[in-house]
């Protein structure tokens, strides 16, 4: 019975992926992609990767979906022109051949994996007690492979700087996006008043249980960022100007705390990002606490977009 469901799920994912690739309308493709992200979430749940499932739902489906919806609506004006200009047959054949080759290489790579696949999971589980956290994913992300997580946070800051740099010169330092106006008594404003208290609690909870159960700062920060964006889109709040000091400090704080603790490890424990004996858990919590607001800020501002309104006097 489960096999039948899994086979159906896999077929659905592949079919939807093909549909998204072939969809002519950018907006329809984006909607398909969001549904694809939700189906992928179910796949991860079936594979018992609940942490990955949460991330896929929050980032893959939710955040990326919101970014792509914004991109699709901006491209709306140019879509007819883009569709009219068909690349030459040679280009199309070359693109198809390249895509097929990449797919084939990936398929061969996956099918030729040794059985059982090489894994470091037993080693991670054997040493998890030293970190003091109960969720092996969190232990890997913040102790065994903390460097990856640090670089990930820094990459996100760079991504935001990249988005900001797309703003016109006269708007530099101003507020991102356009001012959202909505009926103050309308349903969006209602939702933006009712949902954030619940969403902030859920986001904080998911962040906090990440130490011992599926969850963590990324998923929690996405939910908190979504609540802030909801208030912005309902016109109840406004996105802060990108030149505001607290925005800049907030963006740098998470990675800086992470780097500072890493350097401290170099002095006290003999390696960058090593934690002294017995202090792993408190230090991991400090890093997570510092990263969570930074991530929420980055994720929300990524969606808010490049500064478009001139600096107010």
């Amino acid at each position, binding site marked *: 019975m489960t096999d039948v469901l899994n086979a159906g799920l896999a077929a659905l994912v592949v079919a939807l992926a093909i549909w998204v690739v072939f969809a002519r309308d950018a907006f329809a493709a984006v909607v398909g992609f969001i549904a694809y992200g939700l189906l992928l979430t179910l796949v991860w749940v079936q594979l018992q990767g609940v942490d990955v499932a949460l991330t896929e739902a929050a980032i893959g489906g939710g955040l990326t979906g919101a970014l792509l919806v914004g991109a699709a609506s901006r491209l709306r004006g140019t879509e007819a022109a883009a569709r009219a200009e068909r690349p030459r047959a040679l280009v199309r054949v070359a693109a198809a051949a390249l895509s097929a080759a990449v797919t084939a290489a990936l398929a061969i790579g996956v099918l030729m994996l040794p059985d059982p696949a090489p894994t470091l999971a037993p080693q991670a589980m054997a040493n998890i007690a030293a970190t003091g956290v109960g969720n092996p994913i969190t232990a890997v992300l913040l102790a065994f492979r903390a460097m990856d997580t640090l670089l990930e946070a820094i990459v996100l800051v760079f991504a935001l700087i990249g988005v900001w740099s797309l703003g016109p010169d006269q708007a530099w330092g101003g507020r991102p996006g356009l001012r959202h106006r909505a009926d103050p008594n309308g*349903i*969006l404003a*209602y*939702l933006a008043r*009712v*949902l954030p208290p*619940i969403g902030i609690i859920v986001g904080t909870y998911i962040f906090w249980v990440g130490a011992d159960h599926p969850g963590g700062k990324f998923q929690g920060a996405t939910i908190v960022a979504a609540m802030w964006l909801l208030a912005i889109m309902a016109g109840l709040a406004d996105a802060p100007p990108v030149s505001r000091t607290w925005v800049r400090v907030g963006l740098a704080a998470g990675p800086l705390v992470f780097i500072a603790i890493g350097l401290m490890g170099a002095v006290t424990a003999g390696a960058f990002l090593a934690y002294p004996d017995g202090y792993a858990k408190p230090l991991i919590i400090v890093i997570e606490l510092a990263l969570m607001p930074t991530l929420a800020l980055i994720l929300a501002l990524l969606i808010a977009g490049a500064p478009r309104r001139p600096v107010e006097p």
Partner: protein
Amino acid sequence: MTHLADLVSIVAIVAGAVFFLAGTLGLLRFPDTLTRLHALTKADNLGLGLVVLGLLPQVDGVATGLKLVVVWLLVMLAGACASQLVARAARRGERHD
């Protein structure tokens, strides 16, 4: 007693699945946006509600049961608000034509 609980679960979940099926059918077959939204609410509200109701006798604690109920309430809240927004956008689109 457990047999009774299982029976309640089976009946409620099957009924919920029927509402999901009906909602999906309506979404695919109804002619315009407003009627399609109407079909969708059946899946969100009643379908999910019955599935949650069916799962309640199977949970291992009050906290888990409450979480399931909260999930249903949140889905209803989000569904109702999103339907309103879609309906308003659809009406505005009609006026522009």
